[in-house]
């Protein structure tokens, strides 16, 4: 299930990439980064050099391609869309086509036209059609974009597990961090190059750059300047100008690239790591890095809540159980001092 991709494009954008496809792989990138172009290049629809399939015309590449919106043939019924991929007369492949539709749970819709199917059903017809040729690699372009929010996670979870059953590696171009979280492998495309790849757990824990953090959905991204290094205490102090707050992070040597006193760096903290004052104040490390602010919004999601904290010019998001918020009596306008452990602040020197 591992497929190495080494590709070089010149038109319509210049792009040189080298990454792995492992199981269901998310190619995460902002719009305009060339994700779709890359997918099309792998499908042979955009000229490129490299592997796999270097130089083959699209009709000879063993791939299945699901474009954005799935592109079912509007003049053909669901089963005809699938039968078309077998070549020859449609009628002679009716049984095989219906069997394939059955495998994606759509046998009952075989005689419907694409316009009569929901987004999720269209995606499954497109999948059945792509699978008709027994592809070695499945390519998906923004597979979640045509799905409605309520069914999106279900449809995608089903798609990922189906790809696992079939044992076909899949590469999905997306800007959806939620889909990346569901994948086996994540490849981040930023600034027209691959900046990071790995399993999602590692990626979400340690984004390689602030751009990768943005793509992975990290909301609390800020800048700060290096204030001083305190080797005897084992920390480095940063000045977070927007919030007029001094933060401590684990000691970094002055000589480390980008860590000289006075240099600007990007930093981020997960909303889960921004802590409200603990119920019992006996743990010193929970009191690290006090940040004072005022509650601006509270968004309740089931048993927890996400709150926006206004700290000077910055907005800091934090997530906490609802009962803790209730315990502190927090509402819009409440003043509160939160904490963030030094080790949980992620910094990216420039």
């Amino acid at each position, binding site marked *: 299930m591992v497929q190495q991709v080494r590709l070089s494009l010149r038109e319509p954008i210049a792009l040189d990439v080298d990454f792995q496809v492992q199981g269901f792989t998310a190619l995460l990138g902002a719009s305009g980064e060339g994700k779709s172009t890359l997918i*099309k290049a792998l*499908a*042979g*629809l955009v000229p490129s050099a490299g592997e796999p399939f270097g130089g083959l*015309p*699209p*009709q*000879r*590449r063993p*791939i*299945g*391609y699901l*474009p954005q919106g799935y*592109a079912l*043939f*509007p*003049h053909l019924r669901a089963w005809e869309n699938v039968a*078309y*991929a077998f*070549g020859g007369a449609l009628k002679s492949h009716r049984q095989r086509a219906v069997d394939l539709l059955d495998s994606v749970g759509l046998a009952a819709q075989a005689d419907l*036209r694409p*316009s009569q199917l929901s987004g999720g059903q269209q995606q499954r017809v497109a999948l059945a*059609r*792509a699978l*008709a*040729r027994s592809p070695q690699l499945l390519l998906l372009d923004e597979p979640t974009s045509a799905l409605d929010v309520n069914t999106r996670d279900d449809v995608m979870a089903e798609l990922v597990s189906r790809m696992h059953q079939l044992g076909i590696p899949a590469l999905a171009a997306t800007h959806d961090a939620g889909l990346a979280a569901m994948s086996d492998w994540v490849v981040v495309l930023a600034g027209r190059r691959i900046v990071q790849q790995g399993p999602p757990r590692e990626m979400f824990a340690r984004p390689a750059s602030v751009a990768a953090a943005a793509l992975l959905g990290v909301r609390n991204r800020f800048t700060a300047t290096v204030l001083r290094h305190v080797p005897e205490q084992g920390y480095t102090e940063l000045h977070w100008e927007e919030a007029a707050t001094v933060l401590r992070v684990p000691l970094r040597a002055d000589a480390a690239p980008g860590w000289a006193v006075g240099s600007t760096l990007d930093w981020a903290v997960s909303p889960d790591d921004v802590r409200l004052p603990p119920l019992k104040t006996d743990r010193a490390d929970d009191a690290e890095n006090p940040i004072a602010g005022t509650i601006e919004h509270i968004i309740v999601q089931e048993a927890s809540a996400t709150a926006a904290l206004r700290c000077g010019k910055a907005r800091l998001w934090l997530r906490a159980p609802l009962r803790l918020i209730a315990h502190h009596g927090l509402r819009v306008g409440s003043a509160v001092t939160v904490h963030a452990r030094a080790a949980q602040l992620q910094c990216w020197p420039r």
Partner: protein
Amino acid sequence: MALSAVDTSVVGSAAAYDRGQRLTRRAWLIALAGLLGLGFLSLPFFGLLISTPWTQLQLQPGDVDSLQVSLLYTVEALLIVVAFGTPVAWWLARHDFRGKFLVELLILLPLLTPPLAMGLLLSMSYGPYSWLGQPLGKLGLSLTNTPESFLLAQIYGSAPYFIVAARSAFEGVPRELEQISLTLGQSPWRTFWRITVPLAGLGLGAGVALAWVRALGEFGIVLIVAYYPQGIPVKLWVNLQDTGLPAVYPLLWLFFVIGLPLPLILGALSRRRQDRR
């Protein structure tokens, strides 16, 4: 306070009532204008119906021959136009290149030139003593007053219309569907026939219907380069000149009978397909 609120609401609804009246009046005016326009456009056809001497319809000598000439050569011209125009239309719809506007202009030129002028241009190039007509004549191909010249006139008169219509029909087919077909392992040829042509069907049908009507009714170009063999338009003109208006009715009706079915059938088919989607 409560009373005044009630008052304003009454005034408000009266204003709304007035506005409603005005809108209804405007709707009537628009409908009337539309009916007048429709009446104006259909007036000549009504005139044909009431002035046809139904009991004394008599074909003129040569009318049946002209019918045969028109039918036979229009079908031939249409086949040639579709066979050669379709690739040109597809090429224009799917490829961008420098100077494309020049090619587009060249295709539009015959369409923008008045038919009579186009006929004169053709005789300058294909006429018996012209730069191209002379060598062609030596090869045994005469393009003045021959069936070939009749075909030539019809092709010049109808091809641009077909190409323009077919091109926009092809442009209306999402390129992505053709690309998907390729990624499904299907050849470009099969993709063209099974995906592009069916999806462009409506527009291609309109192009064929337009070309049919233009070729069948071509008069200006035909008059100059192919007075013979006489098709229906020239024969109608001859009948009118030689005998007068009463001599045109039978052939005129036959003209409608053979000219209209193809566009009507194509129109009906396209409407049915649109309903089904």
